[in-house]
């Protein structure tokens, strides 16, 4: 049995945070220089009482304006900002959306590779007859993990959610996957406290980073250079593997959507792979890095602006926290 990506929606919280506002908070830092490099001038941020589950509910409600929710027979929710340790956000979402009790639902804890992993599972469920119409929901609020005095990460990340329906179809439009993991990089992108190993510590001491960013062990830590180094070394090879697995040449791919980490990283990656700028997406200026939602949001925006069209073969490639990565070629 074959599968196809059928419907895509995304939702961004109402509140925005511009670089001008950040500049007022950090008068001693040259934000314009960072903006040029990162390519983000504004991002959407959740309110204190707003969570990833709220974003998930909002994006699904938006999706169901043009899709019969009663067709959904499985929910896979990808988040690293769950409301609770347990139960899963997917179970709470099923109840909020008033979906049937006869559907499966679970969370996956993945970051920037999350959409590719969720898509892998959906394709597998359809192929094995477990489900026919799988709802993938990516919802993330990294702003809640970031210390208010960590300018670099506040500039990069934005909150948001996306929803994708993967349906059983006659033709196979989701190609072969390449997935990879290297846990040796786990300490380079981490929220150290809050789990079972190191519980949340309200007295955690402030750590001053090399660029004067402040954080505690309760907050998100990202070693940007090491992450970029991993991407530069690892991802070109992943693209080649995905091409080989799908028996395609680079030139045969109509469009590339990489995880929208930041503008400089995408430019560097595509330059290395010799992909012309007309064949890849690089635009997160108004939303920032929304983690597992960057690929579906980019795909939706590409469809809406006719950057891609029906029949196009599109490579999707996600990578990040873990380290974890994945790539696939889909046909619209």
């Amino acid at each position, binding site marked *: 049995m074959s599968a196809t990506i059928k419907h895509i929606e995304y939702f961004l919280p109402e509140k925005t945070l511009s670089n001008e506002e950040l500049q007022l908070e950090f008068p001693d830092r040259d934000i314009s220089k960072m903006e040029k490099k990162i390519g983000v001038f504004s991002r959407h941020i959740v309110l204190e009482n707003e969570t990833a589950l709220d974003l998930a509910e909002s994006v699904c409600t938006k999706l169901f304006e043009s899709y019969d929710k009663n067709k959904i027979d499985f929910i896979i929710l990808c988040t690293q900002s769950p409301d609770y340790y347990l139960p899963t956000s997917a179970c709470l979402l099923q109840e909020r959306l008033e979906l049937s009790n006869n559907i499966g639902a679970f969370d996956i804890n993945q970051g920037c590779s999350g959409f590719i992993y969720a898509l892998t599972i959906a394709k597998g469920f359809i192929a094995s007859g477990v489900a026919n119409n799988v709802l993938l929901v990516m919802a993330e609020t990294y702003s809640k993990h970031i210390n208010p005095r960590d300018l670099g990460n506040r500039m990069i990340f934005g909150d948001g959610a996306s929803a994708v329906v993967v349906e059983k179809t006659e033709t196979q439009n989701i190609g072969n996957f390449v997935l990879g993991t290297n846990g040796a990089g786990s300490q380079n992108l981490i929220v150290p406290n809050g789990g079972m190993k190191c519980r949340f510590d309200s007295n955690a001491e402030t750590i001053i980073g090399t660029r004067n960013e402040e954080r505690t062990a309760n907050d998100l830590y990202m070693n*940007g*250079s090491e992450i*970029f180094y991993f991407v530069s070394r690892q991802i070109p090879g992943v693209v080649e593997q995905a091409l080989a697995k799908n028996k395609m040449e680079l030139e045969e791919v109509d469009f590339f959507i990489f995880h929208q980490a930041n503008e400089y990283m995408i430019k560097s990656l595509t330059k290395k792979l010799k992909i012309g700028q007309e064949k890849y997406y690089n635009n997160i200026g108004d939303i920032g890095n929304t983690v597992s939602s960057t690929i579906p949001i980019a795909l939706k925006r590409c469809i809406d602006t006719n950057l891609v069209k029906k029949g196009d073969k599109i490579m999707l490639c996600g990578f990040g926290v873990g380290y974890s990565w994945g790539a696939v070629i889909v046909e619209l």
Partner: protein
Amino acid sequence: MDKRKKIQEIVVACLKNFGQEEMISDFESPNEKTKIKEVLDSMDLVVLSVDIEEQYAEVFEKEIKVLNEEEASFMINFKDVETLVEYINKL
């Protein structure tokens, strides 16, 4: 050609490649005293490091890691072409 000379050629070639792309005039004709750290930021240095590593592997058939995780060493290694070449030569 000795190893150090070959490494210097690699570093200079990678810098030139970088300079052409980013229009950094300092790298049009890099020499031993060309300041790297003053012109490139940390993201640029990652790209430069990976380029150098790949070229090095091609020439010497050996994998190295130019990017050093220790910030202090990182600053010194990329101070100028000479210190970077010296650092790579010892890897």
